[in-house]
């Protein structure tokens, strides 16, 4: 009698466990496609445009507003691109890899936002390119641990450019910003689009 009631229960649990395992394997495999390629290219084009526009600004505030506007545009493009890509793949927007990426990526970005406010208040604008690139690099390396290998590699390039920018003249800092937020995003985005789909 006990066996009769236990057997369906065991079958039910086993089948449910298998479905959970399949979903888990698909979610982990999905992390290879969650990062948007063409979205990254558009973010890079935004960064490149910001670098050109900012270089032509004489006033520090105009330079800052240009880069902050570019950051808002790039962030929006990134979120929309991830949303579209996950929808196309039939995967949830906040899947486990996406949540892990967001949780690892966010702290350094938040620290960057706070440091930006503090440095602007202290009128230390010349430090901003180095700080932005270094913290963006830290965020990308941390978030990239849950993504394709090229993402943490991209983060290392950001750290490299940030180090140069931090100890160089403002002109070199601007060039590093253009290379990091412009060229690097375009190249990596194109590679991701080619290897892992749009």
């Amino acid at each position: 009698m006990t066996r009769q009631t236990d057997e369906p229960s065991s079958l039910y649990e086993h089948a449910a466990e298998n479905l959970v395992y399949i979903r888990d394997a698909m979610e982990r495999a999905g992390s290879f496609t969650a990062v948007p390629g063409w979205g990254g290219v558009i973010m890079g084009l935004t960064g490149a445009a910001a670098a050109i526009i900012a270089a032509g600004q004489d006033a520090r505030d105009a330079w800052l507003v240009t880069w902050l506007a570019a950051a808002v545009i790039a962030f929006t493009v990134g979120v929309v691109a991830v949303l579209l890509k996950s929808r196309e793949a039939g995967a949830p927007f906040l899947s486990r890899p996406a949540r892990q990426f967001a949780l690892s990526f966010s702290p350094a970005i938040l620290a960057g936002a706070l440091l930006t406010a503090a440095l602007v208040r202290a009128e230390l604008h010349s430090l901003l390119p180095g700080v932005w690139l270094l913290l963006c690099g830290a965020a990308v390396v941390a978030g990239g641990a849950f993504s394709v290998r090229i993402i943490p590699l991209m983060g290392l390039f950001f750290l490299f450019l940030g180090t140069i920018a931090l100890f160089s003249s403002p002109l070199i800092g601007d060039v590093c910003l253009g290379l990091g937020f412009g060229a690097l995003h375009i190249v990596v985005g194109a590679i991701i689009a080619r290897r892992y789909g749009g």
Partner: protein
Amino acid sequence: MGKKAPNPKRLTPSPELIPMEGAVEKTAELDRLIHDRLRLGILSALAVNESFSFTELKNLLKTTDGNLSVHARKLEEAGYVSCRKSFQGRVPHTEYRLTTNGRRALQRYLDHMEALIIATRGRA
């Protein structure tokens, strides 16, 4: 445009393919080849990604070279995955893809699991 990940929506279980009343009795007929955890993992991963290299699958499924090699070969022999071997420079590169038969087999397995859950939910 480059490679595109297959749409996992195509793997949405359709329980009408397996009658609920026969699901428990038909458990013995389950595709034993897929029922193994690692082999199930390989098929599930390849169902949402067009291809994976041997190393990517090994890291993804947290297994050893020998284990993955044995189980991937069984799936290959059954015609559920295709395997392409090449060289990247001097390094051997093995790439796996899910075949149409493999996708159908995984679909059947998912159908069976869902039917089993529905059928046993009332009895448990």
